[in-house]
């Protein structure tokens, strides 16, 4: 099980190769990659505004602890063979990768569901905060969405 919090970019292919290694019992590999959009909702949600940069802050120590707990929970709920969670922090730009989740299982359903579960819990439990820099004006902290905490209820 891999967890990394880093500023550097990641290679999806290298991470798949690393986690798969030479195992032959894996029937399904699911990956989710979150990336930085170039547009965001304005503070009053009335319009989309162009974004030039996104800063990601986190709580070192608690981040890794929360991700480990979420990962252990996914492994206890589904027959996951292995999983990787990588989250970037610091200054990121539109188009950049933010987060990578990889799940491996014998059959696809477990890998799909565990990947969604990991992302839903990561989004509402892991202590990361995004600050967006619009093309004009001051940078804003992104507001948490109701829909993200609601997403947990289905699990």
């Amino acid at each position: 099980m891999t967890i990394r919090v880093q500023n550097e970019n990641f290679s999806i292919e290298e991470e798949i190769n690393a986690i798969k290694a030479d195992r032959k019992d894996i029937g399904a590999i699911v990956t989710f990659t979150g990336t930085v959009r170039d547009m965001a909702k304005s503070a009053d949600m009335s319009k989309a505004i162009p974004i030039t940069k996104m800063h990601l802050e986190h709580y070192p120590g608690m981040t890794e602890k929360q991700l480990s707990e979420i990962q252990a929970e996914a492994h206890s709920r589904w027959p996951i063979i292995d999983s990787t969670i990588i989250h970037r922090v610091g200054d990121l730009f539109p188009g950049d990768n933010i987060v990578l989740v990889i799940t491996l299982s014998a059959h696809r359903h477990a890998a799909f569901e565990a990947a969604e579960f990991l992302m839903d819990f990561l989004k509402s439990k892991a202590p990361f905060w995004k600050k967006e820099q619009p093309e004009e004006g001051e940078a804003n902290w992104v507001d948490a969405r109701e829909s993200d905490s609601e997403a947990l209820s289905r699990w």
Partner: protein
Amino acid sequence: MKLLYFAWVREKIGKSEETVELPASVSTIEELITWLESRGPEFQAAFENKDTINAAIDQAHVPHQTALNGASEVAFFPPVTGG
């Protein structure tokens, strides 16, 4: 006790961490917030909508009613927005 502040809570308070000696009367997160607010307008601004502020004791999420029970590290931050 070590206190940590993140994101806009950190910006409003003007520092990311500090070590404090708590009065004996402070035994829960709620009471800690009330005590912090008494320390100045920057804390009052940070905790203006205290229901929206999340707390963690020793790196685990906790509700505001939770007892401090000798915690060594308490953090305050806005709802998380990673992923």
